[in-house]
């Protein structure tokens, strides 16, 4: 049965902070950085007002923030942190440690470009730098999706078959600072949904134990792991991440039961008969949807696929969503300097390569450093895709959208 909900005005940061307040994690260790600052501010207010029982650790850096979360989580606590851009970059070392030690930490990332030159606005270069670290990565289009992901992330992270940290990504300023109507659950329903933390079963020197530091059932977490075991443990992580594709679906279904909102890994839009389509992540997909509607009204068979899940990469869902579209554009706010394309383009192409009938694929890098991706620019992308269709060839595999020459 769908639980009672009410509409409130929240920006993305507030939606993240509010959901986290309702979850009431044991430990929150965070350092403020634009455009994530509001999360930390709101949460410290909740702590000061006694609205949560969380231990708030005002750390001196993001490296320490995530380190504190790893320690807290290893001790059995629920731990939350939030960051952006250079803060996430400073966490880089600990990202791998949190994931490698299978700590179900939840982190909000208000996506912001990496300096330098210094810039505080949105793109996905921060999240893409973390894509190989072993974190589950969800991308949100609006504040509602931030709220939903911030509640659901705990169940995903702590799922018995997953036990991995989860990163909730949403675009800096575009989402983090834009107030929207958000349906929120009641505190009790959120508490009931997330329940108590589930501990993965592991095996110490004295047999099966719960994976947490407990003097009664002692285990070592994070010891030296050399040539004869490290590779095996990395394969465990890779296989667990693959396996999480099934488990996340189950959590999505439970979430739909209480909210009425159906969550998918990828959202195809007007793809059934599409001849030109765009795939991408985050808030820009809302604008793409508008443009698809306009183009459809003009007789262009346009479509789009929004991805909510980036890690694990939803290979089968994406293949199904893309279907038989002959020309596909990847729109992404990220880059790989010196690479054959930006991250999403490379991965989408990898997924499509083995298909007997694969579409032409072109990469459209846009919105770096918060540069606006306007409907006109998206129309230009679709025009470019139509030219590829007419010509039957991709002449420019990677192009930059809306940049001055």
């Amino acid at each position, binding site marked *: 049965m769908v639980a009672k909900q009410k509409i409130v005005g929240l920006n993305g940061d507030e939606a993240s902070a509010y959901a986290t307040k309702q979850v009431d994690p044991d430990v929150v260790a965070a350092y403020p950085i634009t455009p994530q600052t509001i999360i930390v501010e709101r949460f410290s207010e909740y702590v000061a007002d006694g609205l949560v029982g969380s231990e708030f650790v005002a750390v001196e850096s993001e490296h320490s923030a995530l380190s504190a979360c790893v320690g807290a989580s290893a001790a059995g606590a629920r731990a939350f942190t939030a960051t952006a851009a250079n803060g996430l970059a400073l966490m880089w070392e600990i990202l791998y440690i949190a994931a490698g*030690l*299978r700590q179900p930490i939840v982190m909000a990332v208000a996506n912001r470009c990496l300096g330098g030159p210094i810039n505080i606005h949105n793109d996905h270069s921060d999240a893409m730098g973390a894509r190989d670290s072993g974190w589950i990565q969800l991308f949100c289009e609006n504040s509602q999706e931030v709220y939903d992901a911030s509640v659901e992330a705990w169940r995903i992270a702590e799922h018995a078959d997953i036990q991995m940290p989860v990163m909730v990504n949403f675009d800096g300023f575009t989402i983090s600072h834009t107030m929207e109507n958000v349906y929120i659950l009641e505190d009790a329903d959120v508490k009931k949904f997330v329940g108590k933390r589930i501990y993965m079963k592991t095996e110490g020197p004295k047999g099966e134990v719960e994976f947490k530091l407990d003097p009664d059932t002692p285990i070592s977490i994070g010891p030296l792991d050399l040539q004869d075991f490290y590779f*095996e443990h990395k394969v465990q992580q890779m*296989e667990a991440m693959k396996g999480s594709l099934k488990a996340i679906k189950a959590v999505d279904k439970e979430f739909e039961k209480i909210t009425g909102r159906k969550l998918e890994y990828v959202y195809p839009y007007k793809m059934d008969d599409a001849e030109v389509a765009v795939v991408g992540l985050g808030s820009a997909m809302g604008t793409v949807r508008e443009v698809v509607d306009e183009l459809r009204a003009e007789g262009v068979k346009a479509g789009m696929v929004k991805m909510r899940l980036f890690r694990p990469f939803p290979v089968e869902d994406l293949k199904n969503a893309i279907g038989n579209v002959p020309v596909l554009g990847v729109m992404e706010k990220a880059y790989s300097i010196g690479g054959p394309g930006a991250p999403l383009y490379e991965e989408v192409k990898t997924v499509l390569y083995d298909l007997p009938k694969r579409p032409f694929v072109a990469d459209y890098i846009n919105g770096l450093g918060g540069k606006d991706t306007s409907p006109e620019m998206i129309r230009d992308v679709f025009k470019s895709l139509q030219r590829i269709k007419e010509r039957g060839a991709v002449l420019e595999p990677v192009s930059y959208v809306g940049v001055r020459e």
Partner: protein
Amino acid sequence: MSERKRGWKTLPKGAVPYKSSKDYQTGDWGVAKPIIDRTRCSKCTLCHFFCPEGAITVRVDGYTEVNYDYCKGCGVCANECPVKCIKMEMKK
């Protein structure tokens, strides 16, 4: 440790060691090992206190003894011994 090591499917999750650290005999890391000449030992037990591995114990007769299962051959004991009765011998 000659038994077959476990593969990724059966290793404990979270990279937790399934054996006690006692089972990892780190003594075979070293290239040299300390030999105590008890004819000159003054039973001061400084080697026992300085050993970073806890691999030197004090016997009931007051002399110290090296546990070669865990001694990594660092040579701290030989360096600290005030009567220089510990010498580091290269392993063959």
